[in-house]
């Protein structure tokens, strides 16, 4: 009998998508080891991709020399993921609703909404440069 109860990992990556994909895979590996359900894994994959993209694109403005810090804590029942960029942040309340009729055909602006739908909680720091998301395994 050998049971991993809890794993916390803090990682710093350069602002590029290859590194983001590696971290995303590491997180998915971890929740995989804990036997998360397929819908939970799908949700986590999507939300992690969206928020890493935002940190790299909007936060660090694709400047590879800037770092994205990723922290994830996993146990059998939930995963908590925090992503912090080195940008100036933003006000999430200012982000327009992408499902409003007038925004339906805009090519961007759906990431945060998807994170909120797929995760159980999504919370931004006051300045918006850090987001903490929680997903329960169901």
């Amino acid at each position, binding site marked *: 009998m050998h049971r991993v109860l809890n794993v916390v990992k803090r990682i710093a990556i350069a602002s590029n998508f290859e590194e983001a994909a590696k971290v995303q895979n590491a997180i998915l590996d971890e929740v995989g080891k804990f036997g998360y359900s397929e819908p939970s894994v799908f949700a986590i994959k999507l939300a992690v991709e969206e928020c890493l993209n935002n940190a790299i694109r909007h936060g660090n403005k694709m400047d590879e020399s800037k770092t994205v810090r990723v922290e994830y804590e996993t146990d059998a029942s939930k995963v908590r993921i925090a992503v912090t960029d080195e940008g100036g942040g933003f006000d999430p309340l200012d982000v327009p609703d992408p499902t409003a009729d007038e925004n339906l055909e*805009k090519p961007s602006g759906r990431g945060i909404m998807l994170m909120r739908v797929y995760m159980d909680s999504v919370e931004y720091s006051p300045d918006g440069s850090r987001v903490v998301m929680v997903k329960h395994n169901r």
Partner: protein
Amino acid sequence: MTREKNSRLTISTEGDVTLVELAERRILDEVSISEIGDSLNALVVQSPKPRLVLDFSKVAHMSSSALGMLITLHKRTREKGGELRLCCIQPAIYEVFVITRLNEIFSIHQTRPQAMDSLK
């Protein structure tokens, strides 16, 4: 029917309809989206009146960037008086379309023959 293949897309034509199979499971990740977008846009540019079917059978994941790429492709297709159809979208991915209301923007068919027939 002609057939052209790269690692990410399998492109074939049937009459004046172009069928594109998105070929990798993780095809629509951030690293490849812009390349795939370029390939698809090239198809639209080449054709005077593009008729495109995108087969999603093998796509297990979808990000908002991929949705953005599809919206842009859709727009360009229509600007040329063409048509875009999506088909064979797995349920989990289809849910993303519903949540974003993009199922109301795109023509989505369950099967590939249905999508092809809709353009004939």
